[in-house]
């Protein structure tokens, strides 16, 4: 049982094909076959948020999806947020400016989550920001820098156009 099956989806604008058993998670497909190693795996059961990606524009845990379920979907990982290699996405820029990271392990998940959160809620209150980032765990920063980065990114995305 459980033969290898062909897999195909769009990852950061490019069609990616691969193979895997149905039990292969989307996170493992993205890391090992699409080589998007910015998808970090912390807990692998949906708690830590490090593996967050956009699937058809919505933030999801890639460890809680099987790759086969994303057949034909449009996936964006942290590698695909910025328009090109020379530019940072406003959320990435804000995390750098505000010391929103220390060791960096949780950062890709935070950046993707915050980008999605601000798309849905461009002018959040501080309380809304704290709820918005609650689905991602960081064990270094104490979150203050992440809250500040989210505020700065919100202002930049509203004002600056991206």
């Amino acid at each position, binding site marked *: 049982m459980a033969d290898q099956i062909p897999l195909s989806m769009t990852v950061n604008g490019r069609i990616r094909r691969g193979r895997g058993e149905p039990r292969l998670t989307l996170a493992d497909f993205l890391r*090992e076959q699409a080589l998007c190693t910015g998808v970090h795996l912390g807990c692998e059961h949906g708690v830590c948020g490090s593996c967050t990606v956009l699937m058809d524009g919505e933030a999801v845990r890639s460890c809680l999806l099987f790759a086969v379920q994303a057949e034909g979907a449009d996936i964006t990982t942290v590698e695909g947020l910025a328009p090109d290699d020379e530019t940072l996405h406003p959320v990435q820029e804000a995390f750098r400016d505000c010391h929103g990271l220390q060791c960096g392990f949780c950062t890709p998940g935070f950046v993707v989550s915050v980008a999605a*959160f601000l798309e849905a809620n461009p002018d959040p209150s501080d309380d809304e920001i704290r709820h918005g980032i609650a689905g991602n765990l960081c064990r270094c920063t104490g979150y203050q820098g992440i809250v500040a980065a989210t505020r700065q990114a919100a202002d930049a995305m509203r004002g600056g156009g991206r």
Partner: protein
Amino acid sequence: MPAGGRLSRIGQRGGLQCRAVKPAPFEYHAPESVADVASLLAEHGDDAKPLAGGQSLVPMLAMRLTRFEHIVDLNRVGELFGVESGNGGVRIGAMTRQAAVEADAMVAERVPLLHLAAPHIGHFQIRNRGTIGGSVAHADPASEFPAVMLALDGTAEVASSSSVREVPAAEFFESTFMTAMAPDELLVALRFSSWEQPAGFAFDEIARRSGDFALAGAAVGIGADDQGRINRAAVGMLGVGPTPLRAASVEAALMGLSAAEADPAEIGRLAADDMDPIGDVHASAEYRLRAGSTLVGRVLAAALSQVQKEAGLG
């Protein structure tokens, strides 16, 4: 190589080797109609498991707390998605995402308790995938939608290859993670009627961290006549027993009282009589009883204040 020869080299690019996958192997099915799901379930019985949003099932598979030979993915069954008007209330397809329930205007207007409970489920990333039917079929006693369904006397539309039946919430939740559905049955939709009277609704829960499973929670609906006299009371509780529970003593105590004069803190304390909590690493049984009944009082207070406004008395 970790787990023996089954794991072949699948990442050919750069000669990468795939790490061990976590769940036990299964055969994957992606049917596109309820009829096809039902025939797969009829064929494979309890060797098969429907996969909805996967926010509970996939972790359980990954930790090998459970394993199934057949996973029946419901995500391509279009007829299971969406909210529609029905019998003065709403019919919500089982695969409707929790985020879609939260954002739906008809749900907010006709079944406000669902709208109020939804933001308490996990985090927005979880609600983007998690479904209302998945929550209800999983029947976690600490889950939000089952408690709302029980409080509001919602019904489950359940289909197999040979029948369709309606199961009232009071008969649906049999024990922890156990429902009245047979292995060959699929939860198709949930039905809720709206309250055609002045009413107040409130929901809250206690959790150590935002998004954690609730230690205790309450879903309250209170209806009144034009004079503000309570003629309908629905109090659902989560996290304080083996299933979601109704606080029948609280409901009985409220009936006939004036909404303005009811003492929510005092009546809320009665809820302890209807709880059957267990102690665990997160909270002792005693804590759940005391904090839970205090919470019922607070949620009651919010619903009472709203029902007075709706009755034009606030």
